[in-house]
């Protein structure tokens, strides 16, 4: 079933190793990093919005207290 004879063959890709693994490597990197960046953005956005919300509610409280 498996086409390759050895792991070294697999890595060498019949002499095209650099090109094949260069393609797959960068693609894997992009597809790993993009979700991480998006998730981090989501987190910082939520944190920032919560800060704003708290600041607003504090301002409201002060206004009603006066």
């Amino acid at each position, binding site marked *: 079933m498996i*086409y*390759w004879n050895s792991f070294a063959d697999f890595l060498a890709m019949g002499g095209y190793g650099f090109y094949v693994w260069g393609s797959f490597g960068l693609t894997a990197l992009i597809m790993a990093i993009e979700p991480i960046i998006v998730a981090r953005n989501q987190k910082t956005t939520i944190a920032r919005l919560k800060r704003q919300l708290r600041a607003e509610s504090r301002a409201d409280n002060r206004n009603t207290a006066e």
Partner: protein
Amino acid sequence: MKDRFNFYRFASPATFYPLAGALIPFFVAISVLFGLAGLYLGMLVAPTDFQQGEGYRIIFIHVPASWMSMFIYLVMAFWAAIGLAFNTRLSGMMAQALAPTGALMAFISLWTGALWGKPMWGAWWVWDARLTSELILLFLYIGYMALTAAIDDARRADKAGGLLLLVGVVNVPIIYFSVKWWNTLHQGSSVNLAKSSMAQTMLWGMLLMAMCFWMYSIAVALMRVRTIMLERERNTDWVKAVLEGEGK
């Protein structure tokens, strides 16, 4: 009347936000499954290509990335048309959430195309119709993102960006055919990707990888649209409720 109501309910950010959140793990899971199956078939099982040797295996990401880069642009144009026609809030957010992923797909397509072209054609870059059109598609993505980023008002950004997408969709085929014609006139069709006798396993590997890329794009776009929603609707009650429920 009832259908209409349901559609608007679905299209309202307050309903869509939790729905998207629930769907993301699902899409990630099928993307990983398809990816593993596709890589297994493509990288381990599929035989070599007698013309191109093992270098052809780049096809398993190059072609899916190219497909996705074009497909995402079409989907964005579809959302743009919906947004301009029905003035729905969600459509502009969807288009904006898809754009960076589409641009990355175009970039992957160009990168892998270059790494494929070097051993096959002896050059990192040739002015082939497909490569050139892909490059222009990347420019169109960048133009869209730059335009929407430059407009402060979110609704106006959606509309202007949507219009640009529709203009782009009309232009992409014109650009493709003009480049193709120009290319054949200049150098003859020396560059030819003969994929006529593609083995069954190769085809399946490619299709599975395409599914993986598709599901990945949906998952990332959903993640991104959730952030955009919170940002845009930060003064609404539902966002306040979400924020209060978050991270206790």
